[in-house]
């Protein structure tokens, strides 16, 4: 990956493509690339849907190689939903293909005049930006089907649905999986709206005649990759639990812990939890001829995805993830897997963030637009988003705006981004991350850890309260680094428990680039990324007062444990004190 492409969508005379070297961004990938570019080149007070914003698309440092698990793509910009810097990522094939085409980043800049819609084709011969108004308002599934007729089945597609074209703040960017379904989404923060604002409907990535990226030390790389894969396969989470049940395996456990936000964060347990558990879902999928074990990109050995068929055995959607099953399920009082699966399909098709959309529906239920538990009502509200009605545009702009429009007091957002599927009153430490991350409420921002970097900042007693600040800090640093590698975040579980597997990852990175990587290097990279993001947010006007949870978490105890969020403001302000 030795080049960066800049596509000025607003250039005089039509979109202009410039391809250049990496310059100051050499050695970066994934979140490191997107955040450092945005922090350096986007005015922090820019309107997120305006010409000054940039959409930075970057594969990870190991994407496009023969390394396992390297299919994660990062997309960065100033978020129209949160107003902060944003990095949103997805699996699928796009990262692998873009990396093999040699692009460390593709940056969409500017904004065209007029109403034309564009598609961008990237292959070994270069980049073409083509007007195609026949794609207007197509949703992702029919859009990809149409594009396949022209560009075939050996490419990767990045698309926005009608939600992105309408610039809805919950709009996502879809990446196709190996079967060319638009099911892997850069979901959070409205990145689809930024792509839509730049009038780009689709990016077609064709790596025909391109080779895998070669490692500098090939034998060492192969050896490290082998050990890495062994580590993933032998770990009970990555080798057994996730392949068997997918991420929805968490439903029963979170429900048991009393940390499963139910009926818009009113309680921590859902009576219908076992009906929509990963166990129930896997059994149903297999019974209907689907699958509970599927990889979202080539090179994945964890295979945590799956195929969900309807009662007639026909494809309905990809296996819904834990966050989707929660946001459209327990959060809305719904315990019907088929209804949830239908809404998962609609999220993918319209191109909206499944977390934001589900939380929004729950807020809408609190506003009286439907009853909790009303599956048909929830589907009806989501259909409004797909139709682009005035109500749909409100809902499609996320939980914060929906709450304001309808006068709802209980709105679970931080920096206007909806909370994910873990109640911060039951799991106080995740609340620290929700409150303080640069991304808005985000459970994956402080997600990964490696045993040999846990000593950063000194020893931590895991049973002491003050340990939570330290842990959240360490987790956010490590995650920022892992997000830059292109590795699927779920490698974190094996890395957590098996120091030899973390070492194998370091050896993969080192042998690929011909350097020696240590845990300290990982920490340094993570801190660099987070510092840039924090600086951008500060310049955008965010202060420590934005690093807080909504008030009701501090005042309303959640059953069954009857706890509130207890972390003090001064403690939250310590997370980034390096």
């Amino acid at each position, binding site marked *: 990956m030795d080049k960066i492409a800049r596509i000025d969508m607003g250039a005089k005379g039509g979109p202009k493509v410039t391809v250049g070297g990496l310059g100051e961004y050499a050695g970066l990938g994934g979140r490191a690339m997107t955040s450092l570019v945005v922090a350096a080149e986007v005015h922090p007070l820019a309107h997120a849907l305006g010409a000054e914003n940039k959409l930075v698309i970057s594969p990870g440092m190991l994407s496009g190689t023969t390394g396992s698990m390297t299919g994660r793509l990062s997309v960065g910009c100033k978020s129209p939903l949160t107003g902060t810097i944003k990095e949103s990522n997805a699996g699928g094939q796009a990262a692998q293909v873009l990396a093999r085409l040699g692009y460390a980043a593709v940056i969409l800049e500017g904004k065209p005049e007029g109403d034309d819609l564009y598609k961008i084709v990237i292959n070994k011969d270069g980049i073409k930006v083509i007007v195609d108004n026949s794609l207007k308002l197509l949703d992702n599934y029919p859009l990809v089907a149409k594009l396949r007729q022209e560009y075939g089945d050996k490419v990767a597609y990045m698309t926005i649905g009608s939600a992105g074209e309408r610039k809805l703040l919950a709009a996502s960017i879809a990446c196709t999986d190996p079967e060319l379904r638009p099911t892997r989404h850069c979901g959070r923060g409205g990145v689809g709206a930024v792509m839509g604002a730049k009038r780009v409907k689709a990016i077609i990535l064709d790596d025909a005649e391109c080779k895998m990226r070669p490692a500098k030390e090939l034998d060492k790389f192969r050896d490290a990759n082998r050990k890495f894969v062994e580590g993933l396969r032998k770990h009970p989470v990555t080798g057994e639990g996730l392949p068997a049940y997918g991420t929805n395996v968490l439903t029963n*456990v979170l429900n048991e812990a009393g940390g499963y936000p139910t009926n818009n964060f009113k309680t921590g347990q859902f009576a219908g939890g076992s009906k929509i558990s990963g166990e129930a879902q896997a059994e149903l999928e297999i019974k209907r001829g689907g699958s509970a074990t599927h990889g979202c990109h080539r090179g994945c050995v964890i295979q945590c995805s799956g195929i969900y068929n309807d009662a007639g055995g026909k494809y309905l959607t990809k296996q819904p993830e*834990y966050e989707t099953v929660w946001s459209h399920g327990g959060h809305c009082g719904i315990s019907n897997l088929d209804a949830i699966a239908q809404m998962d399909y609609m999220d993918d098709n319209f191109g909206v963030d499944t977390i934001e959309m589900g939380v929004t529906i729950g807020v809408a239920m609190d506003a009286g637009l439907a009853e909790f538990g009303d599956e048909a009502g929830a589907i009806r509200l989501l259909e409004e988003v797909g139709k682009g009605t005035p109500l749909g545009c409100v809902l499609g702009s996320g939980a914060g705006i929906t709450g304001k429009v309808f006068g709802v007091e209980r709105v679970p957002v931080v920096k206007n981004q909806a909370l994910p599927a873990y109640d911060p*009153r039951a799991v106080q430490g995740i609340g620290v991350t929700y409150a303080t991350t640069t991304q808005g409420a985000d459970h994956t921002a402080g997600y990964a850890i490696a045993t040999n970097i846990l000593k950063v900042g000194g020893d931590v007693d*895991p049973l002491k309260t003050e340990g939570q600040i330290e842990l*959240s800090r360490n987790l956010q640093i490590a995650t920022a680094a892992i997000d830059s590698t292109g590795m699927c975040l779920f490698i974190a*579980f094996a890395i957590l428990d098996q120091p030899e597997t973390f070492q194998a990852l370091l050896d993969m990175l080192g042998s690929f680039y011909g350097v020696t990587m240590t845990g300290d290097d990982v920490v340094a990279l993570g801190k660099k990324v987070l510092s840039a993001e924090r600086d951008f947010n500060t310049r955008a006007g965010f202060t420590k007062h934005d690093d807080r949870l909504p008030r009701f978490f501090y005042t309303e105890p959640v059953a069954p444990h009857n706890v509130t969020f207890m972390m003090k403001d001064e403690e939250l302000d310590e997370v980034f004190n390096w």
Partner: protein
Amino acid sequence: MENEFPSRLNLTLESDRLNLFFPLLQKGVTVPVTAGCTLKSLLCDQFAIPADYVTDRITTIFLNNHPVDDLDRAIVHDGSQVALSAAMPGLVGATMRRGGFYAALRQGISLISDSGAAAGECGTVRVKLFNLLLGELGPLVLAHGLILQRDELNELLQNIPGRSGDVPPGTNQLLLTVLFSE
């Protein structure tokens, strides 16, 4: 303990019928136990789960909705609820892990250990099994015996061909044991 249950039903089923019990095991089943013991004793002594399996495989345990870190200091009383799970993904999954490094993140809901066990007494415990443990521990729990109400048993037996008539007449509650043949 057996004298408490004049009504009993013993079933022997083929091993591929185990998954018929999965929904029930996830929701929770009431089992007869000698209460007032440690959680370690319940699992290893009463359910006969090997100690190294408990250590290596049952990495996430809840007692009355509280994540457990020390099995020797968690006391199971009559009416307790025990949920058993294999290792969970995600940061929050790792947070719930027994004795895990991230236990601090769930401070406020972790089990505060009891000081001592009462003398053994007959009682019941509600047991839930999740994910990989459904298949691995389901047979042990079913062999130990479940206390079911009549309507629960009827519903269960309707899913087993040829078994719907097995409920003894006049029974409101009984002890069901299930063995599986290869």
